[in-house]
């Protein structure tokens, strides 16, 4: 144990000093090789300036290439091979994919998640932002609504599984949801096994986590709205609701879109919640967990990579949209 702490500590020291030493030494060497004085000073400075950015960028570019770009190509290669990655099987994995019931179920559920979670989180976030900005203890309220953001998906799953807990007849219901249902005169249910509906109980967990994120960003956007537009509306006799819907919301569409897409990407990648709460049983499978299943339980790198590529494909439109936006801003 002590050894492990020492190892972690020394890694930080070695890593940090290694990085600093690399940047320091490489810059020093560059200065030595192309000195900014003597007969070739001018040419040397130009050449050094051409090289130096790449010294700064090298570790990042190498790591990005190795950990994020290279895997895309390997995944494509793996998806064309069998479970062990040895034999070329052409498009067999893809044709399997489209006939697989679990895959279709995952696609359907992912679609549901994509429709519900970003919309609900953004909606609740917008309401929370609009309301908390109007009251004195708004910042305190905000930090409490924001808090689930710090909780791991798996921790959140435990929290919500407890809420959905079901006890058999004759026992006191200790799950909050069933207790409420019982008090209102309903029959307690095993919520996580109800067909279709159980998907929404899982989505609730992510909505609970992401509302705070949406709230924080939308609240900043609401505050950034020019005062004059609101003043003019008040003078024209608009009600607070009208001001919110017709003056404020249209001015923050851009931010709403950013929040929406950010949560959309998260939804496509989410897997911990499904893994922890139902493990894809009772019709709750999603792509990310399906991929995990084929990777660990199925031990089939071909099929797992194929599923991963589908997730990648679904993310791509947002990726392109983000890049285009970023380039527009740089101009």
């Amino acid at each position, binding site marked *: 144990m002590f050894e492990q702490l020492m190892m972690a500590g020394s890694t930080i020291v070695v890593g940090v000093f290694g990085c600093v030493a690399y940047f320091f030494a490489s810059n020093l060497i560059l200065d030595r090789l192309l000195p900014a004085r003597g007969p070739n000073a001018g040419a040397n400075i130009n050449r050094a300036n051409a090289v130096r950015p790449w010294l700064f960028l090298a570790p990042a570019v190498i790591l*990005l290439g190795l*950990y994020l770009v290279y895997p895309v190509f390997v995944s494509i290669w793996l998806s064309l091979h069998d479970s062990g990655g040895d034999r070329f099987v052409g498009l067999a994995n893809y044709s399997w994919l489209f006939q697989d019931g679990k895959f279709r179920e995952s696609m359907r559920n992912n679609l549901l998640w994509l429709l519900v979670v970003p919309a609900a989180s953004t909606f609740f976030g917008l309401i929370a932002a609009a309301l908390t900005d109007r009251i004195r203890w708004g910042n305190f309220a905000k930090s409490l609504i924001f808090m689930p*953001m710090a909780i791991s998906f798996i921790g959140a799953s435990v929290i919500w599984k407890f809420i959905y807990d079901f006890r058999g007849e004759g026992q006191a219901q200790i799950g909050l949801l069933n207790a409420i249902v019982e008090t209102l005169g309903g029959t307690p249910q095993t919520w996580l096994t109800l067909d279709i509906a159980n998907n929404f109980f899982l989505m609730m967990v992510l909505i609970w986590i992401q509302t705070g994120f949406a709230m924080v960003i939308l609240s900043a956007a609401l505050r950034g709205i020019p005062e004059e537009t609101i003043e003019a509306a008040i003078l024209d006799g608009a009600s607070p609701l009208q001001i919110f819907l017709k003056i404020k919301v249209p001015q923050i569409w851009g931010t709403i879109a950013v929040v929406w897409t950010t949560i959309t990407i998260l939804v496509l990648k989410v897997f911990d919640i499904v893994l922890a709460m139902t493990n894809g049983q009772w019709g709750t499978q999603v792509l990310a967990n399906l991929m995990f299943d084929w990777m660990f339980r199925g031990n089939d790198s071909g099929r797992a990579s194929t599923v991963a590529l589908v997730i990648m494909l679904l993310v791509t439109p947002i990726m392109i949209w983000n890049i285009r936006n970023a380039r527009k801003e740089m101009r």
Partner: protein
Amino acid sequence: MDNIAGTRSRLVWAVNLSVVALVVLWTIPTFGLLVSSVRNADQIASSGWWQALFPATQNLIVRAAPAESQSEEAGKFVLAGNALEGSSGTVSAFGASSREPTAFAPGDVADFGSGQTLSVAADGSYRIESPTRFEGRSPRIFVTARMPPSFTSSNYAKVIGAEGLGRAFLNTMTVTIPATVIPILIAAFAAYALAWMEFPGRALLIAAVVGLLVVPLQMALIPLLKLHNAIGIGKDYLGIWLAHTGFGLPMAIYLLRNYMVGLPREIIESARVDGATDFQIFLKIILPLSFPALASFAIFQFLWTWNDLLVATVFLGNTESQLVMTGVLRELLGSKGGEWEILAASAFLSILVPLIVFFAMQKYLVRGLLAGSVK
């Protein structure tokens, strides 16, 4: 100007009440877990956590004091003690067999058979009398009592020791700290180059970083695990540090570049005129000025690596020396699905550090979110 529209007091009330409702809805799940983590298994199973603060009726099964403690009074052998073990509950009924656990009211005398009698008083003290010596295991007493609220820290003691969460805490730290520190440094240099150095391909690189922001991790898992195995890292801490560094870099570079671009141009140019090299400018001017952005990213990366399950499952083994807290929690969910006292205490321990970091550094977290999204 908002106030003018909001001066109507009914509206103010409505807003306040709605926010109260939202806050309650959003905190109650976590609060329920916290309360449950300090109740014992019987309490959790017999009543909802929202009843924990009130006295509750509980059915207890108590084994009478061991036979060695018996005394002899007037030709009878007596076992005596308190069924509530000193806590100040009130007994409402008791019984001598599991078939009729509530057959008798406090003060009554129940018959155990073969001449033995049992009586339990309202304060829980019991007395078993027998014409013969007690031998072997003492009889069981069934008590229904109204117990005052009581809390225990024993769940925490249990999960830290027996369930291995103490060790997992160390493992998580081992993963998290290097995985937070190392990407910051690498990203800071890259961000500086992308923000303040002129070179061909810069725009392309920035676009690439923006694109890589959304690459799903799932994509990278199998190829990288194969790569790690091929170059001999295997499943070990070095592998997960590198993986977290790689996966965290796009966000780090993006955040830091956005921040650095906003720094005043004059400072950097006047330093250049004074003959400072890029390395010096970066170290002495940019890095100190970028502290808020560095802090923002550090918190992000810390929360992300601490809360991560996927990367840890793939790049670390599940031995005692490598299992992180989220991994333990996942295993407990599988093996102790119904033992909520264990799950609640474990879950709360695993989210404790992120919560502390969150509340202490919220300012930087919000700032980072804004820099990363509203652009």
